[in-house]
């Protein structure tokens, strides 16, 4: 794997697994209708972490109900279904209320894509400093590695999340901006404090 920091690009020659193929298939639909950025655990897995997952997390930029209807229709045509509801209006209401909605291949709940609208400033910022992972069969936009580490280490904080962060730190230690991780840590902690009030 090669990480070109200036180009914000990681080139990976990995052989694709079933999870990668699922992600590429859903991305091909999502990106026709809105912008997306992939966040959280699958980033570490995409970059080699030796663990599996049931869900892959995405932010998508806010779209209207009408736009969502078109996205949902295409997802259904491609063989996906929603685990949360059937009607487009009901699913959209969950999204609009700040909840995540999950899509999987019809009849197969694992793996699934967990999709939500950004709510907080840090959610929106994930779109501005994203990087691209170029695979043999497609490209995936992920949140910056520094944001991924900060989110895992200082927001989620479980053993699994700390290990996901450690994996990325060990792989790209010389190319990571640890000052940025520190700044993001402070932003995340301030945001968390504000939301508590």
């Amino acid at each position: 794997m090669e990480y070109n920091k200036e180009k914000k690009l990681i080139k990976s020659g990995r052989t694709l697994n079933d999870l990668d193929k699922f992600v590429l298939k859903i991305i091909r639909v999502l990106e026709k209708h809105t912008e997306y950025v992939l966040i959280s655990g699958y980033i570490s897995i995409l970059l080699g972490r030796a663990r599996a997952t049931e869900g892959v997390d995405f932010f998508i930029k806010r779209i209207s109900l009408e736009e969502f209807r078109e996205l949902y229709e295409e997802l259904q045509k491609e063989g996906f279904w929603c685990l949360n509801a059937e009607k487009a209006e009901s699913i959209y209401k969950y999204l609009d209320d700040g909840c995540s909605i999950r899509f999987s291949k019809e009849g197969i709940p694992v793996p699934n894509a967990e999709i939500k609208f950004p709510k907080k400033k840090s959610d929106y910022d994930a779109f501005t400093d994203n990087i691209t992972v170029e695979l043999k069969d497609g490209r995936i936009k992920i949140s910056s590695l520094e944001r991924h580490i900060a989110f895992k280490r200082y927001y989620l904080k479980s053993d699994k999340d700390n290990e996901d962060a450690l994996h990325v730190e060990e792989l790209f230690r010389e190319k990571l901006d640890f000052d940025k991780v520190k700044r993001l840590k402070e932003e995340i902690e301030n945001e968390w404090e504000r939301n508590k009030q």
Partner: protein
Amino acid sequence: MNGKEINNKRIFMKPGKNNQEDRENFIKYWAEFINNNEDEEWSKQQNALINSQIRNAGEKVTIKDSY
């Protein structure tokens, strides 16, 4: 290279003093393995783990549906 040797020198994982430290040491070992092997080699090993989970999950649905 079979993945256990780097520049003809075998690398070793330091055992942890407890479960958490041991898990972290393995993550460091595995990251070094990735950095010193072709993407196709490490991904083949990772994919065995991921594909088996996903295929097992799919099979469970099929078995349940067949009853």
